[in-house]
Every structure is written in structure tokens, then in C-alpha cells.
């Protein structure tokens, strides 16, 4: 997040949008320029968060995020025989956050309880280098780019309200961070390909929980590791 300003992101997204929207000159060798992909988007979090701070919070109260699966949607624009740009998103899943730390706060169960839910939208733009030539059946690739994550539909659950002390309003700052990927493309037949990839990105946010004016905060690094299995059509 420190190395990517919002302005940088805007430029990257604009570039990607131009790639999406504007027709490129026809390629001489007639290789399709576009690919649309759909598949499984599995997210495994490796959360590192500060203990919650604020009034009436016992030491060691922390949070964790449950792993989640959702629909992967991707659009890839061929730049050259070895370079692609990919816009990847997961259909915004219902993300569950659970308490981690003391078994109970007072007498209210905490550790392992789902205390909040939110949806996130996390488009990632990746510039990818593909190995081997374009006629290869199997093409490994690596890529690097930027991830933007926004959180919405943030809700404290009934259990979350119970541990927080009442109805709680949550806010989470949006995140911009670097992303990297490594994957394999396998040509099934003609325009159809199978893909498998493993990606990591940096997603950091500041959580602010307001319960009747009592504010608790923490900084969360989600450390998502994403496995994508997809099928794509080139055109």
C-alpha cells in the first residue's frame, strides 16, 4: 500500500480499461486477442491483526477471517506472444470474520464465534509473462500487478453485537496493494483453455467498530492466498 498510491492504481486501471474497451489492431498471425475466463476462486487467509484496542477490550482479543470460495471472473488481453494483462475479480462473497483469543469476553463466547460479515470487491490487474511459444499445449506464466479491495455490506452479527456491547457499526478502509501470480495454461482444444493459478496479494485495512460511541480499532493484514481454477475462451 505504501508503494502504490491511489493515483498509480487509477492509471493502471485506466490502462486496463483501455485495453478492454478499445479494439487493438488486428494481429497478423490471427491469434485471438481476448480471453474470458470463469472458474473457482478459493481464498485462504493468513490474517495478521493487532489485538483490538479501545475501551473495555481485554488483552489478547483478536480476529480472524474464514476462508472463502467464490466465482472467478477474468478478462485477459493479449499484448504480445509472451505478455498478457489480466483483470481478475471474485464475485463478492459473504466474508465471515470470527473472534480469536479469549474463550469468552465476560461470559459471552468469543473465540471462534462469527462476529461480523462483509462483502468485498477485489479487482486485481496483473501483467503476465507466458513461457514457451504460442503453439505449446502447456504454458506456465508468472505475473505481477496491483490489487484493490473495497469492503461493503459490513454487518456485526448478533454474536458480534453481544461481544461488542450493542449494535455495532463497522467500517473498513479500502486497500491497495501489490499482487503476484504464477499459473499454468492448458489448451484443451481450439479456443478453449484450462487455467490454474496461485496468487498472493497484500490486503491491509483499518477496522473501526463503533458501539454506542465506544470505538475499537485494529489493523488487519489479510494475507490472502488465492487458488483459481478456470476455463477460458479466447476470441
Amino acid at each position, binding site marked *: 500500500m505504501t508503494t502504490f498510491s491511489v493515483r498509480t492504481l487509477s492509471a493502471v486501471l485506466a490502462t486496463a480499461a483501455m485495453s478492454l474497451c478499445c479494439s487493438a489492431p488486428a494481429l497478423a498471425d490471427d491469434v485471438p486477442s481476448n480471453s474470458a475466463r470463469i472458474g473457482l476462486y478459493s481464498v485462504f487467509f493468513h490474517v495478521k491483526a493487532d489485538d483490538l484496542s479501545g475501551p473495555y477490550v481485554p488483552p489478547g482479543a483478536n480476529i480472524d477471517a474464514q476462508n472463502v470460495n467464490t466465482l472467478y471472473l477474468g478478462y485477459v488481453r493479449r499484448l504480445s506472444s509472451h505478455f498478457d494483462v489480466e483483470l481478475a*475479480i471474485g464475485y463478492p462473497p459473504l466474508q465471515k470474520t470470527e473472534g480469536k483469543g479469549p474463550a*469468552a469476553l465476560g*461470559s459471552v463466547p468469543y473465540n471462534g464465534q462469527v462476529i461480523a460479515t462483509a462483502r468485498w470487491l477485489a479487482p486485481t490487474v496483473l501483467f503476465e509473462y507466458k513461457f514457451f511459444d504460442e503453439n505449446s499445449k502447456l504454458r506456465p506464466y508468472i505475473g505481477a500487478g496491483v490489487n484493490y479491495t473495497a469492503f461493503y455490506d459490513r454487518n456485526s452479527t448478533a454474536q458480534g453485537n453481544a461481544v461488542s456491547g450493542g449494535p455495532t457499526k463497522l467500517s473498513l478502509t479500502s486497500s491497495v496493494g501489490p499482487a503476484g501470480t504464477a499459473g499454468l495454461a492448458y489448451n484443451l482444444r481450439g479456443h478453449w483453455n484450462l487455467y490454474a493459478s496461485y496468487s498472493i496479494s497484500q490486503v491491509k485495512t483499518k477496522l473501526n467498530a463503533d458501539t454506542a460511541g465506544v470505538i475499537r480499532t485494529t489493523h488487519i493484514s489479510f494475507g490472502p492466498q488465492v487458488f483459481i481454477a478456470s476455463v477460458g475462451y479466447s*476470441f
Partner: protein
Amino acid sequence: MFKLLTPLSVALGAALLCACGSSSQTSAVSPSTAHGTLAVNPPFRIASLNAATFQAELGATSTGAQLLKIAGTPACGVDFYYVKFWTVGGAGEATESSGALMVPTGAVPTCSGPRPIVLYAHGTNTDKTLNIADITIASNTEGVLIAAMFAAQGYIVVAPNYAGYDISTLGYHPFLNAEQQSGEMIDILAAARTALPKTLSAATSDSGKLFITGYSEGGHVAMATQRALEASGAVITGAAPMSGPYALEAFGDAIFFGSVNLGSTVFSPLLSTSYQKTYGNIYATPGDLYSATYVSGIETLLPSATPLNTLFANGLLPQTAEFDSTTPIVTVPNDPALSLQLTALLSVPGSPNYPIPSTPLTPLFAAGFGSPYLINNSYRVSYALDAASNPDGANPLAPRAGAPLAATPPTQPLRLAFYKNDLRNGGWAPNSPTLLCGGLADPTVLFPVNTGIMKTFWSPLVQAGLITVLDVNDTPAGPFAALQTGFRTSLAMQLTAYEAGGLSPAAAQQLVLEGYHGSVAPFCTAAARAFFSQL
């Protein structure tokens, strides 16, 4: 190409639209600042303890374990809510205040459903940050006491922190201001009744039964609240003011004439500032009342976020020297006999000229004199002259039947403030069952001068049996015998422990006496609960 892109665009668009979706909200802040308004609804729950956890937490400390013996095993869990509400200060200033709503919870039938409310007023506390709802703070012993005694036994507890404490922006505390403090009690009661159905403990509701109690300062507040609510036509199921300075005029006279109670150097700045802010005439400048040694900053000294012992150590208040050990010579024009009498009454208790016979408390009263001292002799003399010319009906040197107030309003402004806030004022007597509980030897709030006078004053005014007076220090007898035995045992155990720690019997006795006022509290509170349980 554009046709094929459409599904992705739709999906992206749909996702982005979702970003406008609603998120959960927190409590609403009331736009009204009218007194009695709940400022934040629903209120914040600081903690939720089930009966077993509460018992375990109490049992983890020695004082908690002792409290468990007196209060009994918790039958209910307790939810502790931090209530913010609007009230008014001593001069009608709007101010936000705060306090506790403790709600019994649990599956036991007496822990949920319609439950009675105990409206509780806490004792003098010098800690400006006091939040009686915050059960997580070890120093909140009074919060623990009322939670264990009442809430864990099925009573909903409502207790203000008082204006001038915690979040209140009032720059002083309206200490022993009967109108303000009773008004604040009624305001938090209204706010708590608004809050209760909205809390996380809404399975517990107000049964309509209302009990009022409080300790020390809170004893005065409880009685003033009982008076105000009765005057408004509200039905009070029962009241139990405890160890309170109810007969303020008589108490003030006793102190100014030498019965200097333990803690007087702390009570004095709280009292003078409270009455100065409300009546504006206690002094022209604080130096009229306070000695040059302590006058600087005295109006804003208490309550304070600084511990009391630090204030003593920093020389901002004397520990005990309320009055000048040099006796003022009183000269009443054309009345040499009165001059001599007043001069003698203003001498140090126990000294040859002091006319009141010695009691076990005399050495403690004498410790209220020294140098440097807090109160100027000139102010003390002006008070004494007023008291002599217009005596309180309970003055042992000029007693009148029924122990009434002074025949006419005093002219000395501090004594007039005491007169106004003395709970004999207006000739009120309770019309709801009332327990007055205290300890006879209490050196902090003198029992005979306060509880004793109210008993005498009310005696001809109320129906037989309506008022019960309990001295927990008395020979065990009657329905409260077990508590009286417990109290006496507690004092004996303290004495033994101090002596075992190497103190001389006299020094040990002195420490027991210094802790006496606090020692009475759990036993009287248990008596109050026993009294309420019969109503």
C-alpha cells in the same frame, strides 16, 4: 467482442452496485438535551457476566470472597450497561451525566421477566473518573457491591455517577444539593426505563416495583429522591437510606462546634463549591472560608482524577486539620456569658474548656484541629454566632421537642445552605416503608446526629411501623440479628488482623475506626435487600 464482454460487465456492474448496500448501524444519539433524556439508545453494555462467572470473579479476591459471604451466591447473571443521560446542574445548567443500568439475566425465574428496580445513590467518591457501571475496574468496589447484593439477586439496578463525574462537563459536583441530586436520580431512572427494552437483556423488564437506597452521600440523595418522588405522586415500594448526612444543619452545627468528622477536609471543598455554584453567597472569595495555605485552586480541587493521597502528599489538602488548633476568642457585644460559652465550644474537643463530655470519638474529633488548617477561624466564628442565635432544635445545649430545624432560616450563608438541604426542611416524612440503617459509632457520618435526629423528627409524623431504624453495631436482636452479628464479627476480625500485623491495640483500634464507615456499607446494604424482599 463487445457482445461477449457483456456478461462480465454485468457482473462487475452488479458487484459495484452492491457497494451501495447498507451496513449495520450503532446506537442513536438523542438530539434532545432535556433532562431525563437517554442520550445514547440503546446504551453500551460494558460487560455481561453469568452467575457462575460473577461468582468466580468475586471469589478470586479476598474482599470479593467476603462480599460473597454477606451477599450470598449470585442467583442471576448481570449485564452492566453504561447509561448516558441528560440532567441539570446545581444552577440549572444542562449537562450530560452517566451511570449504571445493571440488569439481572439468566434462566432462573427470578432473574428475568418483570423485575423490581433498585435506584441506588453512591457514596462520596473523590475520583472524577468514577464510572460505577464499569465492573472491569478493580477500584469500583461500590459497583461490585450493588451488583452482588441486588442485581445478582434479581433486582434491576439504576445508579448515577453524578454530575461533575465521568463524562459530565459540569465543572463541579452538586454535592449534597437535595434538589439537584434527587432530580438527577429521577432523570437516570427515566433514562434507564427508556433504555431497558432496547438492551441486549430485554428479556428482563420493569415490574413497576421501585426501591430507593444509597450510602453515605448517597443516603442523603436516596432520602431526597424518596421525598421528591413522593411529592410527585410516584409510588415507592420501599426506601433504605443508609449512613447519610440527612440532618445537615444539625450535622454542620456539630462539626463547627468541634465534632469534626473523619473526612471533613474532603467534604468541605465539595460542599462549599457545590453551594457556592448554586447559591453564590457562601463567600465573596474562597479566601473568606479557606486558609491561605490551601485556598489556591480549592474550588476545582475535587472531585479529581488525582488520587486523594497524592493531593494530601502534595499539600493541596490537610488530611485531618479542618480547623485551626488556636481557639478563636468570640466576643458577642453585651453578652459576656455567650462569648465565653462560644469560645469554649470552639476549643479543641477534650481540652479543659471544651464543654461537651468526652466520648470514644473525642480523640478523632481533636485530630480535626491543627496548623496549617483548612477553615479560617473568622468563618467558623460567623457560623457559630448564627448557630447560637438561631439554634437547631437538636442542639444538645438547647434541645426542642421533635428535633426540628432552626426556628427561622439562618443568616450565615453556609448554614442557610445546610438548612435548605437538611431533609427535615418542609416538614416532610415518608409515606412509604423506610429503613434507616447505619452504625452507631460511625466517625464519618455521625449516626446520632443524622439517623437519630430523623427518627426523632419523623416519630410523631408517620404511622407506627412505617420506619425501621437499624444500628448494625447494636446488640444482635430482631430480624437483622444475623447482620448485626456479622458486622461485629467483621470489626473483631479486622482488629485481630491489625494486631497480628504488629500494631498496638490502640493503633489497631484507630484503624478499625477509620474504616468503620466503609465497614458498615455491605451490612446495611444486605439489610436493605432483606427489607426490600419483604415488600
